[in-house]
């Protein structure tokens, strides 16, 4: 019955090829039709690599299925899958996504020797004492004094920031950057934030107000929606 209707439609655009896969047919059928379609096509030698976007509609593909499709495409031909585009995400994926982009409010004092870790943005209402440490994959906001160590963007997010009501840290860490307190006895400062300055290639400390133009998309969720 599906013979009349094609399961796979291929369109050429400026950016390469777009593969529309019908989301009502079984994965096996799709795979066999894909191999049929590809066998018709004989690539010329020295053909440049063609990027392919696969549009899945309302179909969910497991990692294994994605791998099968990309093997089909790249085995004989110079196709490279750029992205899979699907209207659905897996529940677990969505939950981690949500968790990573949620802001967690914690009310406690992180004391010497204690380590507090969180996936996502962290708002700590309380102090980080000397010798204490907080680690978050997103931003770290502290309503209190930061005397210990704060690590933002621990999974490598260099856009993450650390903001504190009172800043006198032992160390600031953002992604893979580390900065430490100066050896002379420095006074702490109120209402400051630490962020990575790309030009200077290091962590700089600045007034909180600079965040409004240096990190416009401070909200983790928006940032991830935009950057994928």
């Amino acid at each position: 019955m599906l013979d009349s209707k094609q399961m796979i439609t291929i369109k050429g655009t400026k950016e390469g090829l777009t593969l529309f896969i019908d989301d009502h047919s079984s994965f096996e059928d799709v795979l066999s039709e894909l191999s049929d379609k590809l066998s018709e096509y004989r690539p010329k030698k020295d053909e440049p690599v063609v990027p392919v976007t696969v549009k899945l509609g309302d179909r969910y593909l497991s990692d294994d299925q994605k791998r099968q499709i990309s093997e089909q495409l790249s085995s004989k031909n110079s196709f490279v899958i750029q992205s899979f585009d699907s209207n659905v995400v897996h529940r677990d994926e969505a939950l981690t996504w949500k968790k990573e982009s949620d802001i967690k409010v914690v009310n406690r004092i992180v004391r010497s020797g204690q380590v507090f870790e969180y996936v996502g943005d962290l708002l700590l209402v309380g102090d980080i004492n000397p010798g204490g440490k907080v680690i978050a994959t997103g931003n770290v906001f502290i309503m209190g004094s930061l005397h210990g160590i704060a690590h933002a963007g621990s999974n490598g997010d260099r856009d993450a920031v650390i903001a504190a009501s009172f800043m006198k840290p032992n160390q600031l860490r953002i992604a893979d950057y580390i900065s430490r307190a100066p050896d002379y006895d420095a006074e702490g400062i109120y209402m400051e934030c630490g962020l990575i300055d790309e030009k200077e290639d290091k962590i700089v400390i600045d007034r909180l107000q600079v965040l409004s133009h240096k990190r416009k998309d401070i909200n983790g969720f928006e940032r991830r929606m935009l950057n994928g």
Partner: protein
Amino acid sequence: MGEAIVITSGKGGVGKTTTTANIGTALALMEKKVCLIDTDIGLRNLDVIMGLENRIIYDIVDVMEQRCKLKQALIKDKRFDDLALLPAAQTSEKTSITMDGMMAIISELKQDYDYIIIDCPAGIEQGFQNAVAGADKAMVITTPEKSSVRDADRIVGLLENESIDPPKLVINRIRNHMMKNGDMMDIDDIIQILSIDLIGIVMDDDEVIKASNNGEPIALEGNLKVSIAYRNIARRILGETVPLQSLEEDKGMLKKVKHFLGIRS
């Protein structure tokens, strides 16, 4: 039913044992029934400071291993009938003390005594865990030094995991002139970092060392500032409201007059 208070600090040498001896003595002075427990196995000191070393026959490990009854191991103080000491063992293995054993001993002592003051060993290992096991309340001792405050902070963090009330803070060995010059952390700085309630401040005084060497707790002295400081802590434990001691040195009449006239002495 009595109350068990553990005296702890994390760092060594800040005055846990001296504080235990003096708070215990001060409470006994106010006619409370007090039992002191030394849990620093292998490095017992409390008996020396109390001047009771020569009376030890059995110790806490003997009680735990049931070589004697608890009552037999308790040493009655030479000054107060209602003050007793359960000494630590000097030779036994540390592993012979268990948390369950400690809890059993303390609950037995609570029947007969109003206050059980537990002297905790330095460090955060098993000895600390044992000392804290049976306690209802805790007192953290610190000196106005960064390292000591850091360790006190660690201890406060560890005590949060135990089922006891938030600890109270004693700041020991305060040297007024250094605090004034800013060479030492001042009291407000320490409280701000630790954010727990202060229950007492104690000045540094050579007399404390002298008294410890003589086996006579300094809290028994009449008018020394340190003695009053320890007695004030005891009064606060009993629920009295006592203002904090002023840090100023007591001035003689002549100095006051000179100060008034603006003459430098």
